[in-house]
């Protein structure tokens, strides 16, 4: 299989930003506020910092094997069989997260806009668009799309922030630290840390980068931008809703619905739905591509496009399997993503690979 794709540094940047922001701003805030109350922003700062550190290692690892995805370089490092076995957890993650994101996107759109339209129609419509883009251009068209969508997402978020300024009450951030203490603040860092660590997908994406030199800076900048936006969002939410945010599904959406400027800027929540849909779109397409491409590489198939249909089918089935919104939006992250995916796929495997590689190369140089 040829690595026919070429993506640029700025595309990597926007890919990361647009995929990180959507889910993180939608889903991590409630979880963080539930634990860390009004100090949730400190937690988020902490969690994002850890995620940025992890990203540094992901990129370091990927740069050791330019032009190769984790599926390939894991075999270079550990040998064919061990290398193949060790990446299996990633497939579990990618396949399931594709279904979960699809479900979350559909649930959110359905909840905020629709009542009569059948859910499967929305699901299929989204799938068709995602599949079309992925099928036609692979990661290249997704990356170009992100280059357009990413700035739109960021600008729209900034507009939302500006419109909300008049409702902010800095007092609602007080008292800092005293109510929660370091333990709860650290615990509250888990959602943002685990969500932002999705940057581990760089270990696949960087293989398609045309110029390797700036990979580190564009990846880290993307993480910093995501962190700033997430931090800003969570502070805004707390300054408006205080700890009420712990009971809301989508605090950022509530914030947008609350916008009311001089009688005529109001009811702007459909903007937010679009914003979230855009981010979800990039993310879905990316996971679809990564899952199909990696599966093809793993089995040694020539055409990843054929595999894509299988991934789509599995994703759709997983989407239906979630019984209700609680399972997809609360239980999936808290009972699967945080206890299994994060420690195994985002920490253990990358560090094992990095460690083995460093040791092996060290030995090779000596001998």
């Amino acid at each position: 299989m040829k690595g026919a794709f070429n993506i640029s540094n700025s595309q990597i940047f926007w890919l990361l930003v647009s995929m990180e922001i959507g889910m993180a701003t939608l889903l991590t805030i409630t979880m963080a506020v539930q634990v860390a109350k009004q100090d949730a922003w400190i937690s988020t700062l902490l969690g994002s910092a850890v995620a940025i550190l992890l990203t540094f290692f992901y990129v370091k690892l990927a740069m050791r094997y330019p032009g190769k995805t984790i599926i390939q370089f894991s075999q270079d490092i550990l040998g064919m069989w061990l290398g193949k076995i060790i990446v299996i957890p990633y497939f579990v993650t990618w396949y399931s997260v594709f279904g979960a994101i699809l479900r979350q996107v559909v649930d959110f759109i359905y909840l905020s806009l629709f009542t009569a339209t059948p859910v499967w129609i929305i699901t299929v419509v989204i799938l068709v668009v995602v599949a079309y883009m992925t099928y036609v251009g692979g990661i290249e068209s997704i990356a170009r799309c992100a280059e357009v969508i990413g700035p739109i997402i960021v600008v729209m978020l900034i507009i939302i922030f500006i419109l909300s300024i008049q409702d902010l009450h800095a007092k609602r951030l007080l008292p800092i630290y005293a109510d929660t203490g370091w333990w709860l603040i650290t615990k509250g860092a888990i959602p943002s840390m685990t969500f932002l660590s999705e940057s581990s997908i760089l270990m696949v994406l960087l293989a398609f980068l045309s110029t390797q030199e700036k990979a580190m800076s564009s990846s880290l900048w993307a993480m910093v931008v995501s962190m700033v936006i997430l931090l800003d969002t969570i502070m805004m939410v707390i300054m408006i809703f205080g700890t009420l945010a712990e009971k809301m599904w989508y605090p950022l959406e509530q914030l947008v619905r609350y916008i009311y400027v001089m009688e005529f800027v109001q009811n702007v929540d459909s903007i937010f739905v679009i914003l979230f849909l855009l981010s979800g779109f990039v993310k879905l397409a990316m996971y679809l591509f990564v899952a199909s491409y990696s599966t093809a590489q793993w089995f040694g198939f020539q055409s990843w496009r054929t595999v894509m249909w299988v991934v789509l089918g599995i994703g759709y089935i997983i989407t239906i399997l979630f019984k209700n919104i609680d399972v997809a939006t609360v239980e999936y992250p808290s009972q699967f993503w945080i206890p299994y995916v994060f420690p195994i796929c985002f920490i253990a495997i990358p560090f094992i690979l990095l460690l083995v590689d460093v040791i092996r190369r060290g030995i090779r140089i000596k001998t």
Partner: protein
Amino acid sequence: MKFRISLIMIAIVAVVFTTGCWDQVELNDRAIEMAWGIDQVSKSLVEISAQVIIPSRMQGQSSQGSQQKTFQVVSGRGINTLEAVQDMQRQLSRVVFRSHRRAIFFGEDTAKQGLTDILDTYTRDPEIRLRTDVFVVKGMTAKDFLSVSFPFESIPGLGALKEHTAMGGWGTEVFLDFLLSVNSEGTAPTLPLIQVTSQHGRKTGFEYSGRAIFNKQLRMVGELSSTQAQLAFWIKSKNRYLTIGGKVPPKGNVAIVILNPRSHIVSHLGKKSVRFVITLYGDGNLRENNTELDMSKTDSIHIVERALERQMSKRALALIAHVQKDYGEDIFGFGDTLHIQHPYYWKKVKGSWDSIFRHVQVRISTRISIKRVGLTGLPLHNRK
């Protein structure tokens, strides 16, 4: 290639769905509801009433339509809000559309029985917004209140909201503010009060008449008059503006408009009790001067300032004592101040804050600074 074409075809079909026509409701099929009343009729029966716009009468108000009502009050009953809405829907040819609601009204009896059991849907339903004003209707059910027409506004419910805003209140932020104080141990929730006015037995309109005080079980336990409420919200720094009048010795009186009333509260921990030192600040414009003082002299401005400061401090102190003694609910948010300033101490006392609040010592000072004195120094009719 064939495959690509079929994909494009699917995409085109998808466009048909993405327009959202499946969920379309024409504007002509919507009953736009602007104000909403809730009454607890009996233990398990809620009555919901709504002021629904009659669009055809909204336009031609100037000429022939002036005598006709521009709204219709419909109501329904059920064990909870949505069941009552369904009951209400039977009388409407259009689907009730609630996103434009600006005010919610509770009957006084309902407020006294408690709001805990009926509030959920107002934050859960995605069609409803958090930004809304909420009132308690004094001495009346919400249903009766909504059918009173108001000469100034075509939608009377909006009139209540406007009255509240014109009195320096924060209007549509009331509901969120209410929810925040319900969730905090250190502030007792309050809601604005509204009352129907009548002349010779005929209902002429309604007036903003203060705040209703709620306890933690969300039962209405008392009320503040309009002036008391303004003062209480000065202490909370939650007024946009207010007008105060006062006597100036030796004789005469003045009135000033305070444009940015705010306060600073400092809590001190004593051995046995908590002490609060409150400073009320305000920059004022003098608008009326019924004294012998010449306002072109700085000295006389000082005299007026000191006189008003003394009176405001005294009134505020009396108000706090009144609330402490008669209601025992911390509507001023002293508990929240303590929470912020002495968080570790607060952890120990927050469970018993209601009883502590009754015995809290308060010291008040006021700093009014008059920035402008109107267009004249001495009153023009003064012959001095």
